[in-house]
């Protein structure tokens, strides 16, 4: 496929790795934020191409993983109501709440359906006027505009049986939390290319100047990531802290303005709990009061619940880049993708799941 195959070119990838080896003189810890990037790194073994000075740690950027246990529990509770059709992205069905998951709810007779796009959720609501169609909408800034359009469109069409149970997370507050933490090890970030496609680079300029940390906006193919790593290594070697954009074929400084305007119309910034991390102030998006008739939490009067996460799970340390998944005592034994204890094992894009899939044999050897 055009604009994909070229960026998987092995020759170029090896050329970039050779250049990184040539440039690097001192140890550095770099973090890719996005779970999609983590997946590419592990899938293609990019970490193994890098010189030993460059350590990659993996950030909290998997929205499936960081969706709070409480939200999953609420979705299951709603799905069990006889007049409700619960709709979500495929990745969400296997995510365990505190005692069950949506897949099991479906097996037990609940009407749970998978959609690829929020517009399909609208279609289900249109063709089932007697059902209450609740869309469990999750995502970072990449997905939030599509989710916003679904609410906007439902409002415009007077589709009164469409509701949203939302768990949206924002990247910059999470980076800020990591950088403010006294035990932070990360010296440079690969910012998520598709989040920046929507939001633009500007938000990251603020982080660079506030913390004097190099940030490179990176794409998702092997060549993209190796080039982003090279750009970060060059900055660190020259003791620079700049914002650079590797993913120029998609990301501009201002980002996608129509998408940002839709976000602004439908959502407002709010405090948000992240599974594995806890509450991060002003790191989420909730529906504005104008759309309260589509807000599942308000309409269905969901009580606030609080669920404790398993004590053995070290996901908070993994998500902050302080520990590698393989050092966890539960890794690949009491915690597997089939039966995850915590956030990063939950979805294929979580760091623990990626290590389980691509490095398990090595880790256990």
């Amino acid at each position: 496929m055009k604009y994909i195959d070229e960026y998987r070119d092995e020759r170029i990838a090896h050329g970039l790795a050779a250049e990184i080896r040539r440039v690097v003189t001192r140890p550095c810890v770099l973090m890719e934020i996005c779970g999609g990037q983590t997946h590419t790194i592990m899938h293609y073994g990019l970490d193994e191409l890098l010189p030993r000075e460059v350590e990659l740690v993996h950030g909290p950027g998997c929205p499936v993983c960081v969706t709070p246990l409480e939200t999953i529990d609420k979705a299951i509770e709603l799905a069990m109501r006889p007049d409700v059709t619960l709709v979500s992205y495929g990745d969400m069905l296997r995510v365990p709440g505190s005692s069950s998951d949506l897949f099991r709810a479906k097996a037990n007779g609940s009407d749970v359906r998978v959609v690829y796009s929020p517009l399909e959720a609208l279609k289900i609501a249109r063709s089932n006027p007697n059902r209450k169609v609740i869309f469990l909408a999750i995502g970072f800034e990449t997905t939030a505009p599509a989710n916003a359009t679904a609410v906007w469109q439902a409002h415009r069409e007077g589709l009164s049986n469409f509701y949203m149970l939302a768990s949206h997370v924002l990247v910059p507050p999470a980076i800020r939390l990591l950088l403010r933490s006294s035990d932070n090890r990360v010296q440079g970030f690969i910012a998520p290319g598709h989040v920046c496609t929507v939001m633009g680079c500007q938000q990251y300029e603020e982080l660079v100047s506030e913390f004097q940390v190099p940030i490179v906006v990176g794409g998702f193919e092997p060549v993209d990531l190796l080039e982003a790593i090279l750009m970060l290594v060059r900055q660190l070697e020259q003791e620079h802290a700049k914002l650079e954009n590797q993913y120029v074929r998609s990301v501009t400084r201002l980002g996608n303005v129509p998408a940002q305007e839709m976000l602004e119309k439908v959502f407002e910034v709010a405090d948000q709990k992240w599974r594995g991390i806890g509450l991060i102030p002003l790191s989420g998006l909730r529906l504005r009061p104008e759309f309260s008739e589509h807000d599942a939490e308000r309409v269905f009067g969901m009580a606030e619940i609080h669920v404790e996460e398993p004590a053995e799970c070290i996901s908070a340390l993994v998500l902050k880049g302080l520990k590698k998944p393989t050092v966890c005592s539960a890794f690949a034994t009491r915690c597997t993708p089939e039966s995850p204890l915590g956030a990063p094992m939950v979805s294929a894009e979580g760091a623990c799941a990626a290590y389980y899939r691509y490095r398990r044999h090595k880790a256990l050897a």
Partner: protein
Amino acid sequence: MCLAIPGKVLEISESKGLRTGRVNFGGIVSHTCLDYVPGVEVGDYVIVHVGFAISKVDRAEAERTYQALESMGLLQDELPAAMTEDLEKSP
């Protein structure tokens, strides 16, 4: 989850007040909302996430970057020779 892939716009129409396109992803054609990329025309490449185009691929930038990368990839072929030379120079 933030997976988004490039596809070529084949046709543009309107559906329920939303600008919609038929987009070809390496042979698979899918309906895509084009509301967030108002300037896109038939023949353009867009990057699509959960059924929404979130950007138009900047062809000039893509080609320029790729050419720069390719020249770096070719350097690698010359690398062993360069390294041998260095080794010979060192005492």
